């Protein structure tokens, strides 16, 4: 018969294995107290070396797995929580026309004509609706929503096409980076003219319609929707 000797020890989670390994037979965890996890360790006076070795390997494996999981979680740069309600999408097209003939020491010129299709989404920030913006009188409800803003601009790679190129004999073709720089200028122009396209006004109209329908589905008979007094400028996150 093996002889059992009982004792309890207070150990930190990150204590080195040689503090806890040499006396393992059975381990159970007591509730954590003051930032320290208490282990009650039952000691067995017999030849435990194979079991000790097995437990040590398991601990090291668990630590290694923990580190690996942490590294995997760091792959994404950032995750941001938000509450944007996109109520309208405008699909727009633009011709990108450029001529590279301004540099005096480059002989011959080169011209490019590209077409691009962009998707613009606008909507309201749901998180900005506070309880003070809502007033209820029986079956009548009044809401003040924040003004609409431009939420996203998306030019998919497949929606950007080179239609025509005219390259002088002594010049090289436009590289991928140069084409991207030209498309980035078009992207800025589209973003800058979002307000002129009327996307924000359409977005607010759609938001009012959607909220009205939703609240009517919930049993309200009269719904009044208005928009706040914040600045109505398009900007992207």
């Amino acid at each position: 018969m093996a002889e059992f000797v009982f004792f309890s020890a207070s150990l930190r989670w990150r204590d080195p294995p040689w503090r806890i390994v040499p006396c393992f037979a059975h381990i159970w965890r007591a509730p954590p107290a003051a930032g320290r996890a208490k282990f009650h360790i039952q000691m067995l006076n017999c030849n435990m070396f194979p079991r000790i070795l097995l437990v040590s390997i398991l601990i090291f494996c668990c630590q290694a797995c923990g580190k690996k999981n942490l590294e995997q979680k760091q792959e994404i740069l950032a995750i941001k929580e938000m509450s944007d309600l996109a109520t309208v999408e405008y699909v727009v097209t633009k011709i990108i026309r450029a001529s590279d003939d301004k540099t005096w020491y480059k002989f011959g010129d080169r011209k490019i004509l590209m077409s691009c299709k962009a998707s613009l989404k606008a909507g309201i920030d749901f998180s900005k609706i506070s309880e003070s913006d809502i007033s209820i009188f029986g079956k009548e409800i009044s809401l003040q929503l924040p003004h609409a803003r431009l939420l996203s601009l998306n030019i998919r790679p497949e929606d950007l096409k080179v239609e025509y190129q005219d390259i002088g004999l002594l010049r090289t073709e436009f590289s991928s980076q140069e084409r991207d720089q030209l498309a980035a200028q078009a992207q800025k122009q589209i973003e800058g003219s979002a307000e002129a396209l009327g996307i924000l006004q359409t977005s607010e109209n759609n938001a009012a319609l959607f909220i009205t329908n939703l609240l009517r589905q919930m049993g309200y008979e009269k719904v009044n929707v208005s928009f706040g007094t914040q600045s109505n400028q398009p900007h992207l996150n």
Partner: protein
Amino acid sequence: MLKILIRYIAIAIVLIAFLILARKLNWLPSWSDIFKSKPVKIENTPILVKEINELSQLTTVTAFDEVVADSFRVSQNNFSKILPLPMPVLASSVDRIVLVGKGRVTAGIDLKKIKDSDIHVEKDSISIKLPQPEIFDAILNPSDFETFTEEGEWTPEAVTLVKIKARQEMTDRVIQQGILNRAASKGRQVMLNFLTGTGFKKIHFE
């Protein structure tokens, strides 16, 4: 002879002094500007609206990510075109393109999919069935790409395929990180706040 030499030196000094003065007064561009290539600017062409779509997409999570996508192919080099060499190693070269893209993926709940039958109201309690979360957009715009290497001639169509590959990789990675679960829980939280504000005391999500 000496007089002629002095005259030439004086003219040279006056010319140098004039050039220095002109540069100081910004009448002349700097040496670095003279040999700097001018940026290519696009013309201001009109923007045409093709479609207007009504949406009700509640975007609850945005994941920002950086991806690298590459492609390579073996091609004949220019030297081999001029002199046909018997050795295939010398006659061929590897074209490679490596792009780095910084983009974002948005996910949330499409509230347009809520049907009348998904909402049950009784006095101050409401039961609502929210649609499944989904990926709305994977945005990698032209300004989000950086060309790390471009060796050889790559057609715009071939570059587009590499960009699509980068976007797919970004979306897959973000889904693997559980963005849809986060989008669902945040969506429930947003709707809970909205419904509490609109007077409901008991709110249940199916």
